[in-house]
């Protein structure tokens, strides 16, 4: 009996109950919706559940790794990720006209995925190292650390991912205390440069923006997706059409309904009440993550936890805003809900790091 208790203790010691419960609730919503989106085929649901169990194991492992250990891995990880991005630029595999993949013999690997974690770790490590004496030069150096991978990913070309990675870097800078003057300056510069960027965009990128402004111009492509998603959400009403009863979903009007547009399926079948509950679950999860961030004991832990929290928010917000027609169609999945193993695993690793920050906070302060 005592041994059993000890095993239970080892398993749960570092697990943050509230964070875990919120995440599982959201995943549950995802599985239920996926069953409907996949025309009641169980195969996708089981495959997603498999990813989930694997992801939970990884979460547990990361929850048991102390933040200091992660900090030691930060520089090598960042250097490796940049080297791989350079490798992609030189000998990457071209898929769909973009050079994003590195062929590792056995499998193809997308180094930009690794960068999503490596960049915040690297920046947090840097600010921790010079904690207490951070000057403007450090922010300039940090900006270089951000710009290099962002540039490499942008020219793949993968504008969406490069913007997300730029955002994750910016979050760290912001939390590390970037001057408001600089932030206001950056925003102003962005507004001024905007028209110039337009001329440098690829045709397909311009087309996406134009389609966002006028969905009717591209009835076979993204505009159609956007219109059909709005119809699905709007026709759901307050209480929704009921599980498995969404007409938009089941008459094949909704595109990408397992992945990027799964929220439209959910909104159609569960209505405003369902959408509100899901928003609330996300809010609870992000709120808990913020509490953990605020209580973190070292600069490194604080910055990493903060960046993970904000990226979680960014993904959820961008996806739901896209599905409801507030943002143009960009390929961002809904965290913990959209079908896809890689995203599920990265997200749970993020949760694991948050739990580790929470569990290891007292050890360091003493």
């Amino acid at each position, binding site marked *: 009996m005592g041994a059993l208790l000890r095993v239970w203790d080892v398993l749960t010691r570092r697990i943050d109950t509230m964070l875990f419960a919120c995440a599982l609730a959201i995943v549950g919503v995802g599985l239920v919706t996926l069953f409907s989106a996949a025309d009641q085929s169980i195969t996708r649901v089981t495959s997603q559940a498999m990813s989930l169990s694997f992801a939970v194991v990884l979460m547990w492992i990361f929850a048991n790794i102390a933040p200091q250990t992660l900090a030691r891995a930060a520089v090598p990880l960042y250097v490796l990720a940049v080297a791989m991005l350079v490798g992609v630029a030189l000998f990457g595999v071209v898929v769909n006209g973009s050079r994003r993949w590195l062929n590792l013999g056995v499998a193809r690997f997308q180094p930009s995925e690794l960068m999503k974690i490596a960049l915040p770790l690297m920046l947090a490590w840097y600010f921790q190292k010079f904690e207490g004496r*951070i000057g403007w030069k450090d922010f300039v150096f940090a900006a270089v650390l951000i710009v290099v991978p962002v540039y490499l990913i942008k020219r793949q070309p993968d504008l969406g991912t490069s913007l997300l990675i730029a955002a994750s870097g910016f979050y760290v800078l912001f*939390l590390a*205390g970037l001057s408001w003057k600089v932030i206001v300056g950056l925003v102003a510069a962005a507004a001024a440069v905007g028209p110039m960027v337009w001329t440098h965009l690829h045709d397909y990128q311009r087309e996406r923006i134009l389609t966002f402004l006028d969905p009717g111009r591209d009835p076979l492509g993204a505009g159609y997706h956007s219109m059909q998603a709005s119809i699905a959400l709007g*026709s759901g009403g*307050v209480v929704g059409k009921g599980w498995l009863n969404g007409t938009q979903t089941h008459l*094949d009007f909704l595109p990408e309904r397992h992945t990027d547009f799964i929220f439209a399926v959910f909104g159609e079948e569960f209505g*405003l009440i369902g959408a509100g509950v899901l928003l609330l679950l996300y809010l609870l999860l992000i709120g808990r993550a913020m509490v953990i961030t605020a209580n973190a004991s070292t600069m490194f832990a604080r910055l990493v936890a903060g960046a993970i929290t904000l990226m979680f928010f960014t993904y959820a917000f961008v996806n739901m805003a896209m599905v409801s027609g507030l943002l143009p169609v960009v390929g961002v999945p809904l965290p913990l809900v959209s079908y896809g193993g890689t995203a599920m695993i990265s997200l749970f690793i993020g949760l694991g790091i948050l739990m580790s920050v929470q569990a290891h906070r007292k050890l360091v302060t003493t």
Partner: protein
Amino acid sequence: MANRLLFTSRRRGFGGGRAAATSELRNPERELFYFRRRLSLVALLVFAAFCGLFGRFFYLQVVQHAHFETLAESNRIAIVPVVPNRGIITDRNGIVLAQSYSAYTLEITPSRIANLDETIDRIAEIVDVQPRDRKRFRKLLEESRNFESLPLRTKLTDEEVARFAVARYRFPGVDIKARLFRQYPFGEIASHVIGYIGRINDKDLDRIASWDETANYKGSDYIGKVGIELSYERELHGTTGVEDVEVDSGGRAVRTLKRTPPIAGNNLTLSLDIGLQQVAEAAFGDRRGALVAMDPNSGDVLAFVSKPGYDPNLFVDGIDPANWQELNESPDKPLLNRPLRGAYPPGSTIKPFLALGALTMGKRTPSQAFHDPGFFQIPGHSHRFRDDKPGGHGTVDMYKSIVVSCDTYYYLLANDTDIDDTAHFLAQLGFGEKTGVDIEGELAGVLPSRAWKNQRFAGKNFRDDHRKWYLGDSISAGIGQGYNAFTPIQLAHAIAMVAADGVGYTPHLVKTVQNVKTGETREIAREPASRLAVKPEHLAIIKNALVGVNKEGTSAKAFKDAQYVSGGKTGTAQVFSLKGEKYTEHKVDERLRDHAWFIAYAPADRPKIALAVLVENGGFGAAAAAPIARKVIDRYLLGSTEPGAAAVVPGVSDDESD
């Protein structure tokens, strides 16, 4: 306000640098305070953003609910792509070489069917299903993307359509669809030019995405795979239309509400003369080889033969494994595009070009004569480079060297000329580089030089003496053997350039592109692409000698009693094994025979046609290749049709061809 939010310690850091800052006391509480203040701000923003989202949901799901509900209710409107008609390909006289027609297919959507085999068995009771259809369906199933419907039977008869329509309710997931099919009326004739279309696979999808045409290919099943069908895919495909179709609750179309018609692909008119092409292919008989005939004044390709050919119609619905195996494994390599991808040593056909180079570089004068004992020896070496005539040709000047094809004359020339100078001159004629003809897959061939050899034998597997250029290399190259390897289209291009007094055109197979909607016709550019830097009097000397070859030289017999004056040059090339060729016992003797070459142009004073002929393992060029050239030139200049070589246009009237 701004600076107060930064860490206090930072300020000293500005002036005094790190050394000063480290001595300062840290203030963790203060830092934490500022950090938490920023975090609270973030929390506020997050909350506001989610409120914004909720507001948007409220707007869509409550305020606009009625509107969207009507839309969803009436969203029985499916948007269906309408595939455009693929452009027609015709020859220069308007004879159709590739066309589309509509026919019924029986299609299965595998994702909607539980037991495929049982369903197919049941279908077979109503409609004829051959084992070959099943096999092809299996293959398509393996290659298919997820949810598409796949054809089980194509080209159903009206009776079969009627019979299945009656029983349709018993077969959910099985439909009759009207699809466009591609047909190539001439079958094997010109198959290597026209190519074929086939079902879109993953590689094609990547290609389509890289053109940013994914939406335009919605609903398209086929794409150009080889030849003109491939290289002009984007002209031929057209713009996909959109149909708003009302569907019933089961998802079946009830009626069309709105239609944006598709825009048919552009029609192509080739420069090819299919009558001439037929004569040329017939002239080859069963022999393997290649022929490229061009108009030297425009680069129009008039005939483009690669023998043996294949029937492109086999590929359209997905080729069945038996036919594929036969084509792919045949030692005759019917799928090899010889004019573009067969690199052969040019043999003696290189001689007039080398002679022109010798005149231009001042290495020889026309009247300078040498004694030919029947062989050549590098001073100090015992090896004899032999002439084809034992005992030699006697005294040989430049004219005679070309007319009787004297090897010794060219051994001596190679001995006197640096290989890099030779390569530099030959490059002007397009040797060793792609001609830029408008179908894909062309090889550049090999124009040997020191730099080439050094690079060819680079790496650990070779020693320095492998990389070194020897005089012996130059001597072999001097009569078109050794490392030289050129494609038939390169030789056709080079002789056309000589025929046109040094003006080179990029060979092209498509003459005009016609927009079906506007009726506008666009010519494929045919400006001169290059000009030879040679003196006109030197060119005249070479052309005079080429006329001599057909009048009194190696090919005089083939051009006996011709009604026009022509220039030509024969060539015989030692066998250069094609890559990956397997040893096949009963054919080995034949396959070790020399390749026969012939290049020619006519009429001599104002050339209208220039060509290169290659007969694989044909033996002596004069005997095997020159008569083919004679037939093609006769047909083109005189319109004469020899018995058995008449232009027969299957299914189409051949009035236009004459």
